[in-house]
């Protein structure tokens, strides 16, 4: 960001200053107009989600007037959900599954990344490549054999199944991010610490983790996103309402029969989408830096 800001302030080339300047201002305005257009298009669904969530079922079914505006805004849908035991259950399930997934994934990823980037062993290069390859395995490729495996373990219809499986989706990329951040720490730093008699656990906890904190934040957000938004695994493995996470709870349990309580469904979506949106609002920069680390170096 700082780099681009200085680029923007750079004086225009000396020749044809006037016309260049004018051209640039035109391009700037055109960009703003185009961006505004795209932002409006992109925000239609979330906007409509919130609009609908503020309507009563009566207002929705009456179909009187413009659907894009609310005539009698009400928070009833939100209140009703907050006091609804089933919805509270989904929320709690999602929170606990996500919390355990993030903790487990980050522990596994940090230990492995430290080992792969600093200690090394026979075959560690192969393992690094293997980690990257497993990142490219989509969840929908293996959900059927995993269904059988979960059956043996007695984990069908248990949120423990998700705690076991979500790390398989999160760990490879988290490890990949952490290897990148750990490798960028100068070797002299840990060599000096080793000479001073520090042990590997000390080096990891007192040097690597604090220095690579931006990477840890990025990887944590990734693990959070995976666990919070996952849909296929909970849909396939959890069939009763009391085990459902938010995504499946809303899609499968709130939509029952022919009477869709769309106001309430949209309120539920908005509430379930709020935690990721809040997290991204504050920590977006770390996440994007982690994601695009490769793109900027080329």
């Amino acid at each position, binding site marked *: *960001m700082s780099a*681009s800001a200085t*680029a923007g302030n750079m004086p225009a*080339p000396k020749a044809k200053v006037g016309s260049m300047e004018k051209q640039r201002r035109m391009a700037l305005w055109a*960009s*703003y107009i185009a*961006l505004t257009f*795209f*932002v409006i298009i*992109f925000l239609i669904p*979330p906007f*409509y989600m919130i609009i609908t969530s503020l309507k009563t079922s009566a207002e*929705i079914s009456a179909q009187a007037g413009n*659907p894009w505006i609310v005539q009698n805004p009400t928070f009833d849908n939100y209140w009703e959900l907050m006091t609804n035991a089933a919805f509270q259950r989904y929320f709690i399930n999602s929170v606990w599954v996500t919390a355990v997934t993030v903790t*487990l994934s980050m522990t*596994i*990823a940090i230990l*492995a990344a430290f*080992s792969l980037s600093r*200690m090394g*062993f*026979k075959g560690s290069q192969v393992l690094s490549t*293997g980690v990257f*390859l*497993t990142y*490219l395995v*989509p969840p*929908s*490729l*293996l*959900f*059927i*054999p*995993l*269904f*059988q*495996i979960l059956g043996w373990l007695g984990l069908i219809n248990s949120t423990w199944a998700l705690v076991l*499986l979500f790390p*398989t989706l999160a760990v490879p990329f988290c490890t990949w991010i952490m290897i990148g951040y750990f490798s960028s720490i100068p070797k002299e730093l840990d060599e000096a610490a080793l000479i001073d*008699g520090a042990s590997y656990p000390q080096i990891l906890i007192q040097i690597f983790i604090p220095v690579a904190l931006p990477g840890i934040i990025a990887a944590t957000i990734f693990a959070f996103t995976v666990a*919070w*938004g996952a*849909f*296929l695994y909970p849909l*396939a493995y959890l069939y009763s309402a009391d085990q459902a996470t*938010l*995504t499946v709870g*809303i899609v499968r349990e709130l939509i029952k029969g022919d009477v869709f309580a769309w106001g309430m*469904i*949209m309120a539920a*979506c908005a509430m379930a*989408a709020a935690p*990721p*949106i809040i997290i991204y609002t504050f920590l*977006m920069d770390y996440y*994007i830096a982690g*994601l*695009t680390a*490769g793109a900027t170096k*080329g």
Partner: protein
Amino acid sequence: MADGSTMVVGAPAATSPGPRQAGSMKQLARRRSLAALALCSPLILLIVCLKIYPTFYAVFLSMLDRKMNNFVGFDNFAFMISRPSFQLVIFQSVLFAVTAVILKAFLGFVLAHLMHNIRGRNERVWRGLLLVPWVIPLSLSTLTWWWLFDPSYSAFNWTLNMLGFEDIAFLGTVWNARLSVIAVNVWFGAPFFMIMYLAALKSVPEQLYEAASIDGATAVQRLFFITIPMMRNIILITVLYSLIVTFADFDIVRILTNGGPQDGTHLFATYAFVVGIQSGNIPRGATVSLFMFPILAALAFFVLRDVMKRNKEMA
């Protein structure tokens, strides 16, 4: 798994006593690599038990009959590929993935340029707004799209009527449904391309453009002879990666159309779900999923090759 990780935390402590005991360097090195292996063991365990083993197990499952008693070889594959409904799944999966990725890449490229043009003026705000589709869990935003497409309450159709057009049955006919599914995927995925391409754009040295301007290059020439060659690698990796993810997509089709109308929008993943989980035909479901494997493997090979090449260049 919890046991595994706690065990490993303890492991390196035993080997730490230190480099100062110069006595046996070899032994120390062995200890060190043993500790390194121990630190990786939860990761290895995870990959072997829940990625590699299920892959082989899927192959085994796909060779069983419906009751899972008898071995039938490749009969399931032969059966699936002879069925018109499955041929349609192959066609739709390819159509969906290729069209959606091309559109996402193009839109992402345009958005990245627009963002680059405004050069950091309120960049966080613009970027944040453009990233909203990508931040909302996909299953929830797809639900909202479904509501927007609803046959009798569609807000889009209301708007079209206001402007004097006729209703569109967004999910009512096969081709409309296919386009709607692609549109939702593009809406969701374009922001990811935007941030990748924006990062790549920012890394192109400004001097190249200045030199080109002095030499009298037009904007189109700058695009084709500087921007695209400089971004080539990241464009390629992003497209390949997105092809994998889009090809294996599940959420959008499952929620929006559940494969309909007339099974015209099923992708591999949704079809495998219907066959394997809903109808309980585990071997056939595994077979459907496995049809993705060669395509994904080929794409993964190219991603890996490019990533390795980049790593070598950077080193």
